[in-house]
């Protein structure tokens, strides 16, 4: 176990130490103490490491995450796991706005609430939020899945492409071109898999409603010309 205390060690030293593991893994388990809201903690990890961050982090924690697992035992600021590629990121507390934005793969789990724009422009990432998500979540979401065990705020899935949205609680409002869809067997199987992967065993996939694209914005409709 490698322990890095950010009250005595520079952030760059931590991230450089994590990148050094890309050459040859000498230490798989890392513990980060006193993050004190620092930005860019444990970004771009590309080695099979387990990084446990004890405390709350600021902007862009675990951004561009590639391989391994980052667990934040606290809350995360804006843009956690932004553009994550693969691997796993777990936030034990709450996540601020645009969690998992533009993510291309991997699994982001938020055990508390995520605020606005969760999964905005997601492109393949799977996001599981145990609490609620804020307004404009999954805006222009292209692929991947957003699973919300609580409620969703205004304009869920506005201008959505082919991402799948599963919400267990209430949706305050749906965004443009986002509609409720039938939950078929393949969706139940998919959702069960995501819940399993997120370590959530106390809810059933049948409790969720699926939302997705009505596909009416895919092609320009001349009747809408006056709207622009």
């Amino acid at each position: 176990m490698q322990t890095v205390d950010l009250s005595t060690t520079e952030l760059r030293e931590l991230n450089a130490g994590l990148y050094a593991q890309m050459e040859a893994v000498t230490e798989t388990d890392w513990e980060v103490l006193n993050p004190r809201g620092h930005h860019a903690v444990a970004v771009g990890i590309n080695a099979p490491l387990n990084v446990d961050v004890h405390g709350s982090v600021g902007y862009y924690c675990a951004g561009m995450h590639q391989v391994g697992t980052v667990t934040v035992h606290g809350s995360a600021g804006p843009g956690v796991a932004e553009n994550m590629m693969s691997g796993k990121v777990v936030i034990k507390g709450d996540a601020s706005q645009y969690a998992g934005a533009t993510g291309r793969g991997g699994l982001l789990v938020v055990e508390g609430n995520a605020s606005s724009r969760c999964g905005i422009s997601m492109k393949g990432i799977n996001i599981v939020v145990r609490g609620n998500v804020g307004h404009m979540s999954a805006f222009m979401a292209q692929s991947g899945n957003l699973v919300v065990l609580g409620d969703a705020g205004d304009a869920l899935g506005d201008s959505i492409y082919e991402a799948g949205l599963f919400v267990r609680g209430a949706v305050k409002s749906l965004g443009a071109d986002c509609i409720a869809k039938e939950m078929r067997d393949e969706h139940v199987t998919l959702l069960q898999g995501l819940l399993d992967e997120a370590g959530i065993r106390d809810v059933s996939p049948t409790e969720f409603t699926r939302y997705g694209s009505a596909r009416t914005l895919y092609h320009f409709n001349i009747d809408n010309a006056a709207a622009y």
Partner: protein
Amino acid sequence: MCGIVGLFIKDKTLESELGSMLSDMLITMTDRGPDSAGFAVYGAPGEMKITVQSTDPEADFADLAGDIRSACDVSCEVMLKDTHAVLQMTSDKADAVRTALREMGDSIRIMSAGEAIEIYKEVGLPGEVSERFELSQMSGSHAIGHTRMATESAVTTMGAHPFSTGADQCLVHNGSLSNHNNLRRELVRKGIHFETENDTEVAAAYLSNCLAQGMNLGAALESGIEDMDGFYTFVVGTKNGFGVLRDPIACKPAVLAETDQYVAFGSEYRALVNLPGIEDAKVWEPEPATVYFWER
């Protein structure tokens, strides 16, 4: 980008620490706003206080009490702090002193007036501003600080926050308003005077106008959601109140923390990490278009 910090003390034993806690928070927000910084501190309400700033303090403050006495025959107590001076007088004399100050020329500007508030602001790094005005030595019931990265108007002392447009009122802002010119025209028509071209001053004057019509801070902020367009996280102070409001889109960051001892605001959690008992505080992100306010 700008940085906002705020503290509203609930446990009176912490009042003597207000300035030192706020100073630490303000300096943490330096990289969000290195252009200029400012803060409003609410001390124990007493006689009327007018805080002024001068571009030429050596000349203007050489005998400020004497200048005011000869201009309007009012005796004020004067406390000098770098480019700022705090004048104390009985409240019935405040208008006469204001008029005298205005007639003393353009180099003296009124920062704030009220029974509790003092506002200090200058161009420069937050740490320098805090040190020049000895923020860490100040005590009081609540305080609001701002670090500015200018977007809507020039980097000047008058463009720094907080803005005060009414007795014991102040407002700081992270964001930019898009309908401030129109709103300013409407307020000017109601007889309100503006010192700058700054969008935040319009927001402050808008709220002052609501309060002048008898609304409480919460109602004034509710009304602001309807009338103000743009990006904003506002933190507002009154003599006995402390309020927070974010626009409905809520792009501008905000974190609130509350314990039995205080309510604290930071643009980022980083600003709050040194507060006593923060590990066990209730920490949350204020909801968009939702008014939060505390009064004592």
